[in-house]
């Protein structure tokens, strides 16, 4: 063991003395600051031009609409029935101006009411109902409106328009809205409504037993069912505690920075590690320095083990440095909280703090990289050609997502889940309730396997690669 340790220390000395190692650390740090710069630029641009859609400026367009509609009333070419509708629209515009709510903005409860009124008017339903709705707006009574909606649901149940489960789910959502005053105030952030509609979708999926979230609409597996239930719980927790989710946190530039920094630096680290691994054996053979080690009283497997350990050690060290740097930079340049990851444990929603979460995700992302490192190392040992090992390793690392998405689209067999490339999304499995935009983009269709299944597949894969490279390195001549 001590011999392996000495060899390991020697490998580290060698790696550190290489110029490329220092270069990569610098590039990784530059990538980090690149992400910071990008986040800051976006923050600046968004603060100058308010890009988020608000309904404050709806009045202008409403007035314009009213003007256009009034012109059509005097137009002889337009039929009477159309004029009738236009008249209703004009009335609606007047109401909008009066109550300061757009009927197209249904996230605001008054807007929702106005939209219903316009519907009722066009259908020529009884005036009493309309008057009732208007009175609610005039009284500014949010909870009364919610009560009305609940009664309507009950009515639907009695008329057997909806099933009992559907009714319960709808009531659940209405209660949730009423309790958390969702839609009570104007422009309070669209994420609340997005969460509500996500809950609705989850409930619908659970009711039907079909996964409406995925593009293929497969039957729900028990794991997926659990995941949806957890999502609902987490969303409820978010609404109750006012924690916006990552992908809707438009104003949270710290989250933006952290996500971006992770993407950038992990790519740099991965490519560096693959380069290091791809050259580990073949470079030494081509420059002859492998003899430097092979002529010492150390069996070859010890030399290879020291090399593998050294690369892994570097991977861990650099990742640790970068993850801590990310947190420090984020703390310096952003004055709010970053991602606080929520998860469900024993039926309760728990929270991981930002620091821990950042480090954990960095290391979770390391697991697939280790596989690619072993792959490159295996190629390096077998082919003894650095160019082949490095280029093939990096190509596989970069291209596997796209290629597998295409393949998974064509092969709809059960065994496809045993393909190692379909099990690389470890991060999504450790943190299932984060919806990172990048993860959605790269979503593969064969991902609904459990974390342990994926780890087992990757583990078998790693062992096979290790056996191959040890066999090759131990038994082949060093010529």
């Amino acid at each position, binding site marked *: 063991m001590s*011999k392996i340790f000495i060899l390991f220390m*020697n490998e580290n000395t*060698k790696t550190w003395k290489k110029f490329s190692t220092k270069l990569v650390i610098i590039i990784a740090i530059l990538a980090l600051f690149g992400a910071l710069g990008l986040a800051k630029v976006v923050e600046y641009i968004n603060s100058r031009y308010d890009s988020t859609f608000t309904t404050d400026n709806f009045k202008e367009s409403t007035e314009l609409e009213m003007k256009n509609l009034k012109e059509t009333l005097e137009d002889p070419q337009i039929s009477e029935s159309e004029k009738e509708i236009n008249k209703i629209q004009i009335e609606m515009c007047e109401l909008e101006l009066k109550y300061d709510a757009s009927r197209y903005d249904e996230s605001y409860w008054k807007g929702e009411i106005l939209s219903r009124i316009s519907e009722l008017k066009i259908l020529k339903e009884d005036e009493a109902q309309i008057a009732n709705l208007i009175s609610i707006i005039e009284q500014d009574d949010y909870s009364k409106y919610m009560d009305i909606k609940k009664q309507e649901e009950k009515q639907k149940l009695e008329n057997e328009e909806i099933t009992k489960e559907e009714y319960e789910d709808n009531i659940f959502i209405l209660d949730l809205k009423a309790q958390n005053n969702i839609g009570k105030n104007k422009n309070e952030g669209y994420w609340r409504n997005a969460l509500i509609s996500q809950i609705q979708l989850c409930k619908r999926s659970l009711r039907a037993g079909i996964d409406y979230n995925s593009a293929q609409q497969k039957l729900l597996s028990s794991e997926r069912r659990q995941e949806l239930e957890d999502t609902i719980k987490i969303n409820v927790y978010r609404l109750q505690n006012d924690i916006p989710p990552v992908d809707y946190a438009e104003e949270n530039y710290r989250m933006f920075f952290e996500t971006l920094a992770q993407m950038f630096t992990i790519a740099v680290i991965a490519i560096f590690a693959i380069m290091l691994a791809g050259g580990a054996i073949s470079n030494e053979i081509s*420059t002859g320095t492998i003899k430097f080690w092979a002529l*010492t009283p150390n069996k070859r497997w010890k030399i290879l083990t020291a090399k593998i350990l050294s690369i892994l050690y570097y991977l861990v060290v650099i990742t640790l440095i970068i993850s801590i740097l990310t947190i420090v930079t984020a703390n310096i340049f952003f004055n709010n909280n970053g991602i606080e990851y929520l998860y469900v444990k024993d039926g309760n929603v728990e929270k991981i703090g930002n620091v821990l979460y950042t480090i954990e995700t960095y290391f979770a992302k390391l697991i697939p990289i280790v596989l690619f490192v072993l792959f490159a190392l295996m190629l390096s040992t077998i082919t003894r050609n650095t160019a082949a090992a490095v280029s093939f390793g990096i190509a596989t690392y970069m291209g596997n997502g796209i290629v597998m998405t295409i393949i998974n689209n064509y092969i709809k067999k059960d065994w496809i889940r045993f393909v190692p490339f379909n099990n690389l999304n470890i991060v999504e499995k450790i943190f299932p309730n984060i919806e990172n935009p990048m993860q959605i983009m790269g979503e593969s269709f064969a991902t609904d396997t459990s974390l342990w299944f994926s780890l087992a597949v990757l583990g078998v894969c790693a062992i096979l690669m290790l056996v191959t490279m040890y066999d090759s390195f131990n038994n082949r*001549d*060093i010529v």
Partner: protein
Amino acid sequence: MANTVLELKNISKSFGKKKVINNLSLEVKEGEIYGFLGPNGSGKTTTIKMILRLIDNDSGEIKVNGYDNKKQFEKAMECIGAIVENPDMYRYMSGLDNLKLHAKIRNVGMQRINEVLDLVELKDRAKEKVGKYSLGMKQRLGLALTLLHKPKVLILDEPTNGLDPAGIKKLRDILKEIAHKEGVAVFVSSHILTEMQLMCDKVAVIDNGNVVKIEEITKTESTIEKLEIAVKNVEKAIKILKEKFNIESKIEENKNIVVTIEVEKVPVVVKELAINDVEIKSVIPKEHTIEEIFFDATEGGKNE
């Protein structure tokens, strides 16, 4: 009687169908500089690689200081210091750093590093990057690396390749010192014959994977000298030699005369030739050289 520290017994090796080494056996003793001669492609490097287990031999046994190099690999390797083909070091590191890497594995300290640096005369340039070294310096650094752990056997593959005459002499002096003073067995392969002549105590000539000759090189003064004499009038000189001294002489291609006579007779012969108006251009003693051994033994000689 010196101990045998390197022993090869009936080694064979084939690459594919081609037999590269065929039943090779030899022994190297303590304190001996053992030359391993052979034309290019005769299997010198292959043999050395087999001793070092960079290549595995198909059959036969290799023992280093009594340890089998397969069964007791680590123990056997502890007795060996070797440079194969080129002295390969990490170019991006300084000579000293390269030595330190090795020193850790060999478990020796800074003191020994300084000792070997002194021995190979690299002390003042040890902190430069190896990439900037000349070939001679690299060779010497390579030697320093192999000497760190005081090996019992030093194996050098073509150590004089690419060295200038001064470098070769320096290397030779170092090797002689460690072999004769410290009792290290030095096993040197080369195809440069004059070099071997000056350096080795014993040579083995290998051709096509077979040892064709093993010969001690005697450094003692011989009583019989071979002379190569260049003269203007060859026939006259031969006649005089025949008549006065009863010496049979050979005529070389370049019309020089080669004679074999006792050492004390040399001045007399020269004087006699001079008296008889034979114009002597030069008289060169012709040593019993390795070259002859080599060409006698290898195909190179047969072809000529």
